[in-house]
């Protein structure tokens, strides 16, 4: 394009200012993309939840348990294909910083319900036959360098006096869904049952139900809750996505918080770039007047200003997105399971490009319009 030389020459006339503007744009866009990824991580649990799965918890709250005998009654409800019960374990591996979710599972039904979590048959067979056996998610095993056959000690103080529980890593599960959770630690129900105080025995934390059809969700949910209505342990049954959303909300309205911070970043970006363009145009009033005098139309002048701000935005944007591509996996790996997996999707990258283009155009628009309206005679008088 024959005008590109003029556009780039103007851009590079103040190199330090260009560097600082592109740098602030890059950092801001990186932050914006990072926040979008974190926001996505919080909502991904909901998106990835099985449409044909229900979660049954104690109506009082998630930390309250229910009798194990509920399982038989739940399975009798029409539309329930499988039901598996889980419990929270809450052990500590070496240091409290090494948090990861640990679930006591029901080996008879877990695989039939959590179908996207795949364990090789031979590993599963070993796990079922090993009371101290555990299955770890692929990411979790990678995080601590565990291999099948390793002995894993966890300290636990939730069930009686603090003691160390010893486990054997019998298998590693993977998740068929992109971005799906691979950070859980499953241990055998029987081993747990043997080692907890009597008061805990005969209780389960929650059930996950696999339905014949997602269309049955409302009816089955109501049927489960009606079955246990007016009992000492009333239930609250909801779809897995609603359960995940509610779980995320326990941390506060993360989505709103992230959206607010993202908006602040976005408008700061707009102001920084807009200010740079405004200063740059003000410094070049005389030159723009000369361009107009020699035949460049108002639209050309607007085009030049928009092209400059767009180039700044795209430069900064691409650097910011490059930073995001490099940094998000590293940050995600160091979050130690505190957040759902951070996944930089094509959509998030696309959103970053759209934001960069939008900010580029929006920030150049006001200075561009003022340059467009510049009267040559007045501007030349100021030179």
């Amino acid at each position, binding site marked *: 394009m*024959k*005008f590109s*030389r*003029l556009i780039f*020459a*103007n851009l*590079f*006339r103040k190199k330090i200012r260009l560097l600082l503007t592109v740098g602030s744009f890059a950092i801001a866009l990186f932050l914006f993309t990072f926040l979008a990824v974190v926001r996505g991580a919080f909502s991904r649990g909901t998106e990835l939840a099985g449409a044909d799965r229900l979660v049954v918890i104690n109506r009082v709250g998630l930390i309250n348990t229910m009798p194990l005998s509920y399982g038989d009654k739940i399975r009798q409800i029409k539309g329930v294909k499988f039901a598996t019960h889980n419990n929270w374990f809450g052990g500590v591996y070496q240091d409290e910083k090494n948090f990861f979710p640990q679930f006591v599972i029901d080996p008879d039904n877990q695989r039939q319900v959590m179908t996207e979590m795949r364990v090789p048959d031979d590993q599963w067979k070993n796990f079922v036959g090993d009371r101290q056996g555990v299955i770890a998610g692929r990411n979790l095993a990678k995080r601590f360098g565990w291999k099948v056959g390793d002995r894993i000690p966890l300290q636990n103080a939730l069930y009686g006096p603090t003691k160390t529980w010893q486990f054997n890593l019998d298998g590693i599960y993977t998740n068929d869904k992109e971005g799906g959770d691979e950070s859980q630690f499953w241990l055998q129900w029987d081993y747990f049952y043997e080692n907890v105080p009597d008061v805990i025995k005969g209780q389960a934390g929650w059930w996950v139900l696999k339905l014949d059809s997602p269309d049955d969700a409302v009816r089955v949910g109501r049927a489960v809750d009606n079955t246990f209505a007016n009992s000492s342990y009333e239930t609250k049954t909801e779809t897995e996505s609603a359960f995940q959303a509610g779980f995320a909300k326990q941390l506060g309205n993360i989505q709103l918080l992230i959206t607010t911070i993202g908006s602040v970043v976005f408008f700061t970006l707009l102001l920084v770039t807009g200010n740079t363009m405004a200063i740059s145009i003000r410094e070049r009033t*005389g*030159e723009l*007047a*000369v*361009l*107009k*005098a*020699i*035949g*460049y*139309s*108002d639209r050309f002048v607007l085009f030049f200003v928009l092209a400059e701000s767009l180039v700044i935005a795209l430069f900064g944007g691409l650097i910011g997105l490059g930073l995001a591509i490099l940094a998000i996996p590293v940050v995600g790996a160091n979050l130690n399971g505190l957040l759902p997996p951070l996944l930089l999707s094509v959509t998030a990258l696309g959103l970053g490009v759209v934001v960069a283009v939008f900010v580029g155009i929006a920030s150049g628009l006001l200075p561009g319009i003022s340059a467009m309206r510049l009267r*040559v*005679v007045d501007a*030349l008088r100021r*030179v």
Partner: protein
Amino acid sequence: MIRVDGQGNGKSLIQVRGLSKTYRRGGEEIQVLQRLNLDLDKGDFVGFMGPSGSGKTTLLNLLGGLDVPTQGSITVDGDEITHMSGSKLTQWRARHVGFIFQMYNLIPVLTAFQNVELPLLLTKLSKAERRKHVETALSVVGLSNRMDHYPRQLSGGQEQRVTIARAIVSDPTFLLCDEPTGDLDRKSADEIMELIEELVAKHGKTVLMVTHDAMVAARAHTTLHLDKGVLVEASKLEQGVVAGGVA
């Protein structure tokens, strides 16, 4: 033939009739130009002199289509420009007017070549054709060996030469020079005036020049004096020039 009495034969390259310009400043109306008439033919070289505020630059701006008159008309080569829309006027300027400013007004981040090429970027000329035109223009002003120099690497006189090259590169109908030597020492000013004279004599350019400098004005074919917005006398009473040419 240069006339200021409005009695031209209607075939002049530039015809100005009853041109007035009034500015409003606060509640006050300031009449800068009052019913001026002017006829210029191709190849004329006219200098406008006058004290500050007499309306010289305003006249130049009106003739160059940078400003619009309050009254009157300007016709250039058959085109009446006073009623053209802003965008039409911009296109007209690109085709017909070459501007030479006192402060040169080159783009500092472009080389001499690139500065001169600017008006041609608006045309459909190919890159090779543009290069040929720019090289010719720079050779006319004697700067063939400075093509790749930036304005900061040139002297004031050389910068003004680049401005002249930029003004002539698209072969405009006429050149408007606003104090072309105002920022130069005497030697450089002489060189610039020689160049402008050469453009008139050898290349048949029509030049309208505003200056404060009587010696510079004396190089024009005719000098017209503006005072309080009125053309009051012609310094060179050559044949065909009518003094005090306002109605």
